[in-house]
């Protein structure tokens, strides 16, 4: 199966530089300090943030004295895939994902603001259709913003692939992942352009790396714009509803 047809369309009808449809919502739960729900195409993710709070359990001993201890947990709902999963969390794959999530988020959170405290981030994949990691990072960022945790900037992730050995594709769906072809996942801080995490499956020649990376970072910037819009709209709505203060249309406190 060709990832890109002669007419320049991908298997699902997107062009190479088009993201999947992103829909998101902040503050979906009341109990957690921050929460967000994010859909990237058919990949649907729920993220919740607890804290910063006093370190509990094992973290009490491990928490550093000068910054916050960030605890991430990635899990996939048993109904998230075509065949029902046996273990929602704790398997190797999930553990790896948790570590990668933490790496990307820690680089964005201003942990030094919260010494001797703990921050819990739980991400649950409700439906998996490729790019799970990206969706999780993006949802977690929204949840952190919702929780009011201090951040340097948004942590945004996006994936990219290479079709026909030359044309980079952005935001890879499950079908494209499983058809073969390399998969480059990048988590970045899009304003400063820093890369927080980069992971690649399958080999391709280093000659192609610059353009694939470029495409992924481009995707990060596009996603950043969407997330930022959501945040502004959310703040505007909640602000208006709760009468915290007057906010103008652009979302700036007067």
């Amino acid at each position, binding site marked *: 199966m060709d990832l890109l*047809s*002669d*007419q320049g*369309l991908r298997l*699902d*009808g*997107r062009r190479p530089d088009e993201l*999947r*449809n992103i829909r998101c919502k902040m503050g979906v739960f009341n109990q957690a300090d921050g929460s967000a729900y994010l859909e990237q*195409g*058919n990949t649907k993710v729920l993220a919740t943030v607890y804290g910063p709070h006093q370190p509990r359990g094992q973290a009490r001993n491990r928490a550093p004295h000068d910054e916050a201890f960030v605890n991430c947990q990635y899990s996939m709902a048993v109904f998230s895939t*075509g*065949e029902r999963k046996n273990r929602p969390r704790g398997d190797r794959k999930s553990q790896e994902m948790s570590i990668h999530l933490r790496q990307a988020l820690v680089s964005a959170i201003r942990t030094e603001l919260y010494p001797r405290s703990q921050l819990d981030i739980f991400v649950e994949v409700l439906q998996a*259709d490729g790019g799970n990691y990206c969706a999780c990072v993006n949802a977690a960022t929204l949840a952190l913003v919702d929780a009011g945790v201090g951040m340097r900037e948004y942590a945004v992730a996006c994936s990219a692939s290479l079709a*026909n*050995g030359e044309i980079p594709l952005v935001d890879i*769906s499950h*079908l494209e992942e499983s058809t*073969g*072809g*390399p998969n480059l996942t990048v988590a970045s801080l899009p304003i400063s352009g820093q890369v927080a995490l980069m992971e690649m499956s*399958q*080999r*391709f*020649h*280093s*000659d*192609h790396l610059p353009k694939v990376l470029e495409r992924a970072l481009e995707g990060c910037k596009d996603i950043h714009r969407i997330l930022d819009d959501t945040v502004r709209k959310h703040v505007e709505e909640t602000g208006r509803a709760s009468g915290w203060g007057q906010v103008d249309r652009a979302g700036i406190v007067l």
Partner: protein
Amino acid sequence: MLTTKTFLKKTKRGNILKIVREHYLRDDIWCGSVLCKTCSMKEREKTLEKDLDHSSSLFSFPHYLVLDTNIVLDQIDVLEENSFENVIILQTVLEEVKHRSSPVYRRLKDIISNPDRKFYVFVNEHHKDTYVERKAGESVNDRNDRAIRVATAWYASHLAPSQPKGKNKHVSIVLLTDDAANRQKAKDEGLISCSVHDYVSSLENAPALLDKLSKRNFVLEGNSKEPLFPLHLSPKEIQDGIKAGKLLQGTFLASRENFLEGSVNVEGYEKFILVQGHAGLNRAVDGDTVALELLPESEWVAPSDIVLEDAEEDPGDILDDEAKMEKEKQKAKKVEREPTGKVVGIIRRKWRQYCGILQPSQDKNSIRHLFMPAERKISKIRIETRQAETLKSQRIIVAIDSWPRTSRYPLGHFVRALGNIGDKNTENEVLLLEHDVPHSKFSEQVLSFLPKLPWVITDADLERRVDLRNITICSVDPPGCTDIDDALHCRELENGNYEVGVHIADVSHFIRPGNALDKEAALRATTVYLVDKRIDMVPELLSSNLCSLRGNEERFAFSCIWELTKDATIVNTKFHKSVICSKAALTYGEAQARIDDKTLNDDVVKSLRGLNSLAKILKKRRIENGALVLASPEIRFQVDSETHDPIEVVAKKMLETNSMVEEFMLLANISVAQKIVEEFPECAMLRRHPQPPPTNFEPLVKAGHLQGFEINVESGKDLAESLDKAVKSDNPYFNTMLRIMATRCMMQAVYFASGMLQKDEFFHYGLACPIYTHFTSPIRRYADIIVHRLLAACIGADSTYPELLDKRKSHSLCHNLNYRNRMAQYAGRASVNLHTHLFFRNRVQDEQGYVLYVRKNALQILIPKYGLEGTLYLAPPKGQIAKVNFTYNEEEQSQSHGSIKFRVFDPVTVQLSLDRRNVQHEKLMLLLVKPEIPEFSVPSQAGSQQVEAMDVDEVKDVAPPPKRQKKSK
């Protein structure tokens, strides 16, 4: 806009999975017509024209055509004609074609990529107005038909506002479909539609086009006739039957001798399963995958010995001939009976296009004709043509469309004419087609990937390559070679060692993975050499110019450089891409002459002498390791420069320089094989030559034994040694004949992906080396291109791509390469045969020959001068009474008459001439001259009334493995 596709799928393990996929609908898919004023498509990308000349008499207005899937699948032969222009191919159709038949898909893509044909692909599935959802209870086919109609309607309404009113100028959309129901529905929806038959008959050059129409839906007159054949089971019944073990699945192989007999190769069965009679064969055609029902043991029969050819005349749709077979059946003894079955269904047809001639018909005005394929395993085919008068003297190609129960013969249609019977070009064409050698011109799309001329070496190129232009490099090849893919150099280093370099044309620089050029080369797999013609794997610009390492021209090369000590031990090996400039392009003869000429002492000659001395050491070492020196009679035709008819035959000569080049090519191949397998243990493309099973050697051992020589076949080394010892002073050709026999015992060498086999299976038996690959001829072999890419990836000179590293993909690629190679070899042999026939057309000649095998009713004679093998029949053809009787002694492998005894390796003199009675199969005829046997042998150089004919390739095929036994794998 967004929608989701949801469907259920069964996985390989039998689980039912629900799959949900996103499906984006767009508003930026353009209609591709120059007429349109609403789409914002770039002007030059628009395909469909504005001013149409409408040649169809059915429609008085200009129109674009929309094709239904069934038209593309069935009528691709007609679509390839230039009469079809301004056609809209919907994505629905394209996908369905891709899914159903990849050859048709490839041909369709070729048409689309040709800008002159004005075929436009409209991605209707992703267009917001033309996407249709499958309704509840609607089959996939019905949905696709509806999608096609919706898209047709959309086009009509989309183009309407952009055009002036007025019926005659208005471009309309015509839907072509052969599905009557679809046509009716289109009519109800107010669309213009018609069947392909009606449309084609309304075109200007209808008669020629009509012949090419497939007759799939063609109904015989007198449809109410009794069906002749039993019904085929439905796919579901077949599947259930196979699962339950009631039915067997296998490949049907028709018999050459008897058109009412065939066998089925079922996996897991020791023997082929016999099928007989019209009902037993039940419309299976050679190569089809069939479902088979095994008969109870009481109904088993023996294969009939009689040769049964289909009657010359068309008997109409009746079945006969069975009576003769019935009689035979009674006679068969119990022991000879074989498992017998009957075909109950066809799982997959393997119909291709067949070459052949029209059978002369009595009725001059009839448009129905019978077609006789050249391949005797294929039944006659009934076709319709209006050009019988012109076609009757030509070789033509015909495709089978269907085989209804009521028809004795399959129905087909005429595809194209090749040329006059007996014409050399026509015959060449036939043999290429019969051996499935792709030889059409390279398509526009393929050629578009060639480098633009003038081609210059840029600084960027030089930066990435080692500059070897100042080194004395030369190439040594056969005379007349224009695709020079290897060059050599050798120079002495300061430390007394030699530096030897093999420089191979860097074809992979020009052929990038995955593009049309690469795909075409992968399909062709090899350049095919015929006696008078070369069928290139890559376009001529590359094969004879840019890649060819011609003398005194700067070329890109992939170099393999060794440092060798004086006794040819490798000190180190380097690989890199380079730029070279060959100082001389020599032939074997020229190179030999320069080496031998003591007066010459320039750099080229020094280099050659160095190479030659090292090569001798290498060869000696290789032979000591047990490499085989085999022989096969190879000949070359000297061809008349104007008519290209063969005028003289000469055996190929082997010079020292031949083996010099060979040694270094072997060395390079082995070095490269080691390197790539080290880096890519899973997906390296290698070549292996399995050791033949001991049973293969039986005829050789027996023949040697009768002459008093022990042939030890324990290992390659033993075999090589015992072959060396078997020399007879009174028969100098004896040893060569033994080696020819040994060659026949060998297995085929094959390409494979290293991940698919265990390491000890990599062994190359013939060369006696543990690992081997092909690296040195990338211009003419695709395997070498893959190896180049792997090696380039090893040294970081180029990038890899997923298919290269996927061992399953490599495996299936190897499959194709092996198949094409085998076919290329057969085609080459067939070409030699053809030229032998041409050579003997006006000649009768006496020649010295040797008995190679003794058979029950014939002697197999080898004629060294022409390198050909023929059968001298001792028993007369059926129906004639033998005047001279021979006694066959199986133990001793001899035939005797009176005091004269023929044994293996005995010299004989035979008379050669061409038997031209059968137009399709000309045969070379052998008659005995010496030793003289009254009433049997013929006087030297004189015509004879007796007819003992033979067909060279037929005998070859039947020769070594006994009939109806599976070859061991």
